[in-house]
């Protein structure tokens, strides 16, 4: 069901953990739906110098968190903002269709963490692109 890449990131998650003095934190998902992701960022001079995640969820949710954090580490905030759910899924060598929402969650988690940082810095939050898929924001657990 899962690609080898997904299983690798699930079995050996990168960047799992917490940054206690994070510069930005984003949490998405809903325990009712079976997945919550929390992304912690350390930012220095607009660069993501460290990133960690905590995830409650399925294999795809864990792997998406792990892969997403890998993809944004060392990037500028602008670059990190552009990392799409598709990029996460592709880097994982694909996700089963019913699991695509996990990669969406990861993208949203990053966006939330970046905006949390921006708000803390007194900057206006960036806006989500229109037509963007939402994880569970519509209140249902299906995507």
């Amino acid at each position: 069901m899962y690609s080898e890449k997904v299983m690798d990131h699930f079995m050996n998650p990168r960047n799992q953990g917490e940054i206690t003095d994070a510069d930005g934190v984003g949490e998405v998902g809903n325990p009712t739906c079976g997945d919550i992701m929390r992304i912690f960022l350390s930012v220095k001079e607009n660069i993501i110098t460290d990133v960690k995640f905590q995830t409650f969820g399925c294999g795809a949710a864990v792997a998406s968190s792990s892969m997403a954090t890998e993809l944004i580490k060392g990037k500028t905030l602008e670059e990190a903002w552009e990392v799409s759910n598709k990029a996460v899924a592709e880097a994982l060598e694909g996700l089963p269709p019913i699991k695509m929402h996990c990669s969406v969650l990861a993208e949203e988690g990053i966006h939330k963490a970046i905006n949390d940082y921006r708000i803390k810095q007194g900057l206006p939050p960036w806006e989500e692109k229109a037509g963007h898929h939402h994880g569970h924001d519509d209140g249902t657990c299906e995507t």
Partner: protein
Amino acid sequence: MANQKSVYMDHSATTATDPEVVQAMIPWFSNQYGNPSSLYKLARESKTAIENARSKVATAIGAKPEEIFFTSGGTESDNWALIGTAFALRKKGNHIITSGIEHHAIQHTCEYLEKQGFSVTYLPVDESGKIRTADLKSAITDGTILVSVMFANNEIGTIQPVKEIGKICREKGILFHTDAVQAIGNIPIDVGDLNIDLLSLSSHKFYGPKGTGALFIRKGVRIDNYIHGGGQERRKRAGTENVPGIVGLGTAIEKVTRNLEDNSNRIRVLRDRLLDRILSEIPHTRLNGHRTDRLAGNINVSFEFIEGESLLLLLDHAGIAASTGSACSSGSLEPSHVLLAIGLRAEIAHGSLRLTLGRENTEEDNEYVFAELKKAVERLRAMSPLYADYLKKRSRHV
């Protein structure tokens, strides 16, 4: 990985076909391949083989051979029982009663019947997963034609008060169907004693082959055909008979009912040891289903703060086959309707694990499963934001 240990604890999903059963089936493929509907020797032998299997099934549940009809499995039996009787009795009434924790083979068939104009009452269950017979009594109307309540639940193992249900139905003159797919081979069943009118069973749940099952239809019960065509199964179920499958079913049911009590007791003892250890040594764990009125091999527990699919993946990595009621496991998008029906919050339902022990499991399997399970739960909790929050809250309170 090469000689990694592997432990199968998903016997409610399916079982390995007993090698003895496979041996019994083999001749009916390549040598004794006659079509039972034909007239010549090769065909008569197939016919006899089917009738022998029919007798074995009948014996196993206290029925007459002519009350047993072979099908392609539990799901077809359930569809036939419900749709066949509902349409046959439509003139009498259009009300059906079932429980809220049936297998999808019953649940979705009831939903289909609702679309066809039948009205269906889904009885609630208590926190152990049992229906209340008082609820059943008050649900019965003049238009009730059928009650279908499963014998034992496939997820949480809870055994229903079948005898009382049968008695109520008999008194009211209402047909009683039970989906005994999980019960056969685990609980002794006598359809006479229990006043069961229709009973579904599926061979692959008791060490028989997949793709074959049976429906018991008490003599005199009015039921429409469901699969139309040739005159097989005394003109009630068309289609060339799956002779090897039927022989396998017969062999399996005979064997599994022969030492039923001994086997069940052995499995129950083993199950209880593993269950007690899980509940006592892994914190934030709850048992789902009834503590004692449950299938001998069934464990269903919920681990707080974690999600079931990822738990299964870790167990699978350790060679352990198990199951979960989480939405995230393949197939369905919603968490188990059974776990929700017994009152679990969705979040707890997502953290559920089902281990179903069978004939070949050992104490050694228990040890291995417990050790791997404990590690896996700890590992997932270590990455869970919910668990992190819980720890913080607790340290603040201390």
